[in-house]
């Protein structure tokens, strides 16, 4: 448990150091994710007989965090109470922009994915 939390925070910290140190446009936690992914891949290649990640504390902590991912957005979401002035001033335009753009993005992304997958899935 302790080690699992240390691994997650350590990867994030390392990611943050790399992002800021090298002035990358990528946020620290995303680099941290890439680092942890690389480490997990390396571990699986070097010690194929090692226990599957899902059975380890790291797998359990990750599953717990991701199962409650929605909760983590609640504090930022509650910030809406500070934005009432802007939302009243530009309400209709913003609502239509958010609804329209989100629907359009969902449709375009899914259709492009399926169209390209149809060509590439058949290849051996």
């Amino acid at each position: 448990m302790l080690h699992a939390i240390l691994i997650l925070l350590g990867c994030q910290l390392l990611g943050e150091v790399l992002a800021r140190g090298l002035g990358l446009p990528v946020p620290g936690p995303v680099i941290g994710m890439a680092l942890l992914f690389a480490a997990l891949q390396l571990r699986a290649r070097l010690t194929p007989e090692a226990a599957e990640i899902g059975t380890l504390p790291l797998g359990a902590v990750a599953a717990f965090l991701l199962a409650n991912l929605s909760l983590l957005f609640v504090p930022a979401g509650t910030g809406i109470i500070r934005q009432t002035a802007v939302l009243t001033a530009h309400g209709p335009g913003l609502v239509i922009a958010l609804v329209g753009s989100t629907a359009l993005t969902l449709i375009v992304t899914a259709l492009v994915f399926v169209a390209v997958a149809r060509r590439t899935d058949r290849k051996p």
Partner: protein
Amino acid sequence: MTDPARLWVFLAASPLFWLTATLAAYAVADWLSQRADRNPLVNPVLIAVLLLAALLTLTRTPYETYFEGAQFVHFLLGPATVALAVPLHRNWATVRKALAPIFAALLAGAATAVVSAVGIAWAFGAPFDVLASLAPKSVTAAIAMGISQEIGGNPALTATLVISTGVLGAIMVTPLMNAMGLTDYRARGFAVGVASHGIGTARAFQVDPVAGTFAGIALGLNGLLTALIAPVIIGWIR
């Protein structure tokens, strides 16, 4: 016994109270979502935010006081993003075969998200700072706020637009994809990750682990790509 008014003055200013309130509001919201059979309309983030916003307004508590308690939950967004590496690793065999559709859909989706949002709001006469705040609305809060700051937006407004987009996508994705007859969970997950970052990813994990994994990849990649393209697109209207 202490005067209840004085007890409230103590509680209302304490991080413990607002942290507990955040977890309690979410527990209620998640219970309702479960009772509704995870119907997308009963979105746990939306319900929890409405409950807390009502409580803060009624008690006239400033957001800053609230956030002193809630920051402990907010902080976990970082480690949770790192934790996405675990499902990515476990499903790597599936992901590796889909790299071409992933990158094609990422490019199309990221561009659509920024151009359509800015275009529609511009047509409605929104001022430049609102457009700049809106441009990164499909990427996860921390990244979006950084982009917004950089291109002349208001990061606090961006945070609100980001969460709203997340909730909207999480609500829309299932009925929309069903109406389109789209059954590929890789595509469904990836789409909601591009359009609606972590809240969409949370929804995808609720529905299917493969959808969740693809949403997680989309969230990471779109954060990166939007940071690169949003300044260019917003430059066209400056």
